[in-house]
């Protein structure tokens, strides 16, 4: 006997998306035993992210993005507008993001450190990770795994990770979280990886919930870029699994 489950298009009223109801930098979510809400949940998530993107798109005009992200934005926005995506993005939001005219900021400072056993400063490392995230899985993989582990266990990213004196202070600015999300989003454009997707969606919750912390056009633009890449990954997931149609 098929289990009757409401389709969000039939009801027209998506449920609220609870995972961004609080600032997830201040109060991380543990995601333990989360309830199942049927496929109305996809619409609730979709609505949350569209709201975040619309908000950020109005505040990121003229912002500078790291080079790899600035180069990725035009094709990413085109992909958002591809026909038959399960969850389309309103033209007004895409137009606002195009109108932001992101510029490529200074090229990333230096190459990735030799390996995750090195002591690192987080933000420069994440910027370096962006340069390989969509073209060199062998180089990017260990660092993505490093940051995924740190974030998933501690539910925060630290300013640095020093082998001798331990991890540094927790970061409360959304920018480092957006950098990691963008790196994961770029990696997901190359290959299906549900582990990467998992952390990307959690970071998406964080960026959506904490967007009031973005004080500059650069920061808003970086968060918007990360959410654009997350949205592409979401649509790819839905298409691959035959959902949302």
């Amino acid at each position, binding site marked *: 006997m098929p289990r009757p489950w409401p389709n969000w298009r039939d009801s027209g009223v998506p449920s609220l998306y609870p995972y961004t109801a609080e600032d997830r930098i201040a109060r991380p979510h543990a995601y*333990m*035993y989360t309830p199942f809400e049927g496929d109305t*949940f996809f619409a609730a998530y979709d609505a949350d992210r569209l709201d975040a993107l619309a908000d950020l798109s109005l505040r990121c005009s003229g912002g500078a993005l790291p080079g790899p992200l600035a180069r990725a934005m035009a094709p990413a926005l085109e992909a958002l507008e591809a026909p038959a995506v399960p969850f389309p993005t309103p033209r007004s939001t895409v137009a606002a993001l195009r109108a932001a005219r992101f510029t490529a900021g200074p090229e990333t400072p230096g190459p990735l450190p030799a390996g995750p056993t090195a002591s690192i400063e987080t933000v420069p490392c994440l910027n370096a990770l962006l340069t390989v995230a969509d073209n060199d899985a062998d180089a990017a993989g260990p660092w993505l795994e490093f940051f995924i582990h740190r974030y*998933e266990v501690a539910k925060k990213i630290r300013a640095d990770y020093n082998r001798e004196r331990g991890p540094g202070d927790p970061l409360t600015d959304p920018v480092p979280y957006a950098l990691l999300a963008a790196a994961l989003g770029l990696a997901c454009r190359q290959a299906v990886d549900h582990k990467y997707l*998992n952390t990307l969606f959690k970071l998406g*919750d964080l960026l959506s919930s904490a967007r009031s912390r973005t004080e500059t056009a650069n920061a808003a633009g970086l968060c918007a870029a990360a959410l654009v890449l997350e949205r592409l990954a979401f649509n790819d997931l839905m298409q691959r699994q*035959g959902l949302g149609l």
Partner: protein
Amino acid sequence: MTRLDHIGIVLADTSRTRVYLQALAAHGLAPAEALVLTSPSSRPGQVSGEAAKPYQAPWGRVDLGQSAIRSLDDAAVPHREFSPGDINGADVIEALAASPCEVFIYSGFGGVILRAPVLSCGKRFLHVHGGYLPDYKGSTTNYYSYLADGECGASALFITEQIDSGPVLLRRKFTPQTDLLELDHALDSCYRAQVLCETLAHHSRTGHWPEAPGGGTGRTYYIMHPLLRHAAICKSMRSHHA
């Protein structure tokens, strides 16, 4: 009923424990003794309300509404309660160390990690991971494997300080015959229970613990975001109700 000599169980009254105990009984197996960890408040893994009901398991019927204590009493397994029950607590460690059992099946509250003191108390802890090791280590792994290839798994191993990294004794893959809506409390527990019973039956029959072939380092997964979890469940519902 075969009394498992020198094999006890340390448990909390969770859905997994309820399935374990009923599976053991259905397979004619009974632990020598039980240490019961209790909690004054609800803990992860415990089942209540609508979920506390009968389900169809591979070996027959299992009732998640039947308490662990009831199952222990039905099987005449001597048991002792610890309140509050903490597997890493001094009182539990003392009781474990003093027990004549050499191995304890571990089925505690969700999210608890066994620390060095209890792992050093002289006993081994038999655990069944809900995933096919070493490929799927960590949390909520059957959702990940289902998204990847439509399969779930369970793997028996002795607990070490490295999570999900002890030598695998026995592992099985399962193709779900229903949707994944009941994966957390029923289906996953049934897969684990089946592997547990097969592992214990092997030891009872041969006197040795099985050893799964193959190896590798595998990959560690983290608790699944609800979006991915919904994708897995909805995929399974479409597959089973198409």
